[in-house]
């Protein structure tokens, strides 16, 4: 009799074990819904400016002679680390894709004779100020931050420059870190228009000139700076975006090469120490 009861209990446990995957599977699906996933902050935790702003920096007084031409390009593959940026189907992540775009752009720029520095090589996430600092520490530099958008017409590319804002130099002639881009706005617009012109030839439907947007990454960069945003992670196949990388890279390299004489003739570049 005892054996019968044990056999019966084992059978019940076995059969109930068969039910568990249904129950647990349902619960797991309930606990992970896309809507909830989307509510996860896509940005870094807000950090007060006072804790991240560096001491006043950048280009001191005008009147100094130009000591060199445009020779360095700082490429900034956006996001990284715990911040994946825009996310698409099949686990597509902006932070991974922009690394591929950046690698292609580096090769194209080196072929044009530029030295290239990247703000990140792998899946790390330097702060926005650290990324700017890499450009601010160089002489004869332009800064290009690379992005993939969540929206927009797939297959197009847009170039953005920082919107107007006052430079507000202090009595020392220094430009404060949080307004480092102000003296370079005109140069950034010229660079943006040239690169956008190159991109519009390769990617139909792209605008013919750069647009202004209050891109946080650009504001603290003391060099001609543009953001290049490729549309978009809404494509069904990741390969559709990867195929755009060589064209985007060539357009950026050609654009920066065409910008070089403009940069070297500009008073803002001549004023650099």
């Amino acid at each position: 009799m005892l054996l019968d009861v044990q056999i019966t209990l084992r059978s019940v446990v076995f059969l109930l074990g068969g039910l568990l995957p249904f129950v647990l599977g349902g619960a797991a699906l309930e606990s992970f819904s896309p809507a909830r996933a989307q509510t996860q902050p896509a940005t870094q935790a807000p950090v007060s400016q006072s804790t991240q702003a560096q001491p006043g920096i950048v280009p001191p007084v005008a009147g100094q002679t130009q000591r060199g031409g445009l020779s360095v390009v700082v490429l900034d593959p956006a996001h990284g680390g715990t911040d994946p940026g825009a996310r698409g189907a099949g686990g597509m992540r902006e932070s991974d894709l922009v690394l591929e775009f950046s690698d292609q752009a580096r090769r194209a720029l080196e072929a044009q004779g530029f030295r290239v520095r990247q703000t990140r090589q792998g899946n790390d996430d330097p702060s926005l100020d650290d990324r700017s600092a890499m450009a601010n520490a160089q002489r004869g530099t332009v800064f290009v931050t690379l992005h993939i958008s969540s929206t927009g017409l797939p297959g197009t590319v847009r170039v953005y420059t920082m919107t107007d804002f006052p430079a507000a130099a202090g009595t020392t002639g220094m430009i404060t870190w949080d307004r480092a881009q102000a003296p370079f706005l005109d140069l950034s617009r010229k660079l943006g228009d040239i690169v956008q012109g190159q991109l519009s030839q390769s990617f139909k439907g792209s605008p013919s000139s750069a647009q202004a947007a209050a891109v946080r990454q650009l504001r603290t960069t003391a060099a001609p700076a543009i953001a290049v945003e490729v549309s978009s992670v809404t494509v069904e196949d990741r390969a559709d975006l990867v195929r755009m990388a060589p064209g985007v890279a060539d357009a950026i390299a050609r654009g920066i090469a065409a910008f070089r004489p403009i940069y070297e003739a500009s008073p803002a570049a001549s004023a650099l120490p």
Partner: protein
Amino acid sequence: MTPRWRTRLLVGLALAVVAAAIYFPILRRRVQRAARLQQQSEEQARRELTLTLPANPGQPRVKTKLFWASSTEDGVLVPTTVDLPLSDDPVLRAKQVLNTLLAGPVDTELRTLPPDAALLEFYLLPDGTAIADFSEALATSTPSGIQSEQLAVDSIARTLEADVPQVQRMKILIHGQEMETLAGHLDLMGTFVVNTKPSQAPEKPAQTPAPTPAPSGKLTPGSAPGKLAQPEHKP
């Protein structure tokens, strides 16, 4: 327990497993549907809490311009004119137009702001600086990207420019806090230019609205509202 009862028990349990296998997917769908309904109800409740009713429901309706995405051109805003009983008070008026903007257009594809975002509070300083405090959903649900974030802010700025002339510039807070960016790209540390013209008296109800410049919907970098102005000076 006799072998016959044991067999019956096992058959019964086997039937229960089969029934459960059929029933659980149905139950799961029902729970998901209920969760969606609950989410919508919460959103509705939040909207009702934050929605400012017209100061005077009998107030004459005025033509109000709301800026949503264009259905034909990528990355462009176009105005849609609706009749609303707007208050003469600029703060109430701003709350009314922004809540209507947040409610979204008929075609939800043309939204510029996430459906679950809500305006928590709106302040207007004497110098024309507006402080718009939105719920966290504005930051967490706006699609990450320069274009989408810029469109979101521009739709707010251009709607305020068209309908609340007292607002000269706007600062966006998220749940009462200053944020570095909206969704990873757009700078929220400064204020956005809303209206470059001097402050005007609010539009009188039942009158033709004051002409607004170039309602083409195309954003022009040099003059459009929404551009960053006066980043706060940090010592």
